[in-house]
């Protein structure tokens, strides 16, 4: 039984080289990237490098099992892509960012964070809400909208409202 066709060996070596290059590039991207989608894309590159190697070895042995198994690999990769993109969408809606460092609480609890504190990217803060300002009674209305009507009585109400919160928090802590 002649397993290796000599005329095809050069092409098959090139296919193996492409598969290995795909796997190595995918592994490097998986280990270095911090974007969730790029990490997922690198994992897909590693998977397809392996499946290309599988097809090549199936061709080398003159059997169809490599191609048949690769079709199943593509099926599982499609399932994985759908679920991973849904998960990425859910994570993005929670943190409004695609950085993987925001989801690093899954490490061991006694180990420090692998990233320095100044390297961490804070999620973008929501813009402050804009409230309309009404003109007080007895004054001509400001048609330009440039003057903000802040009365000293309104300013004096705010510290009293703030000062209620620590006492309530102390009460709840005392109860627990």
């Amino acid at each position, binding site marked *: 039984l002649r397993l290796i066709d000599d005329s095809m060996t050069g092409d098959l070596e090139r296919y193996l080289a492409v598969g290995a290059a795909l796997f190595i590039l995918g592994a490097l991207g998986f280990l270095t990237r911090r974007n969730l989608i790029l990490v997922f894309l690198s994992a897909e590159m590693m998977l397809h490098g392996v499946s290309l190697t599988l097809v090549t070895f199936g061709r080398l042995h003159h059997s169809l099992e490599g191609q048949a198994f690769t*079709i199943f690999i593509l*099926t599982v990769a499609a399932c994985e892509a759908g*679920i991973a993109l849904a998960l990425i969408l859910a994570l993005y809606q929670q943190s409004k960012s695609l950085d993987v460092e925001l989801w690093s609480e899954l490490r061991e609890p006694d180990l420090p964070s692998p990233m320095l504190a100044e390297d961490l990217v804070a999620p973008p803060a929501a813009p402050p809400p804009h409230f309309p300002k009404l003109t007080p009674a007895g004054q001509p209305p400001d048609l330009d909208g440039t003057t903000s009507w802040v009365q000293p009585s309104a300013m004096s109400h705010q510290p009293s409202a703030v000062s209620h919160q620590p006492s309530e928090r102390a009460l709840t802590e005392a109860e627990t």
Partner: protein
Amino acid sequence: MHGLGRSLFGDYLFAVELAGTLLLVASIGAVAIAPRRSQGTL
């Protein structure tokens, strides 16, 4: 190509059915996991 089809739907028929079921379950799971579309976002 002829041999591949005959191999897929002959020897691996149960695996093909299983892969189709897996695709169905995965698509249903992805729809269940994905967040709802809110106003003005994705």
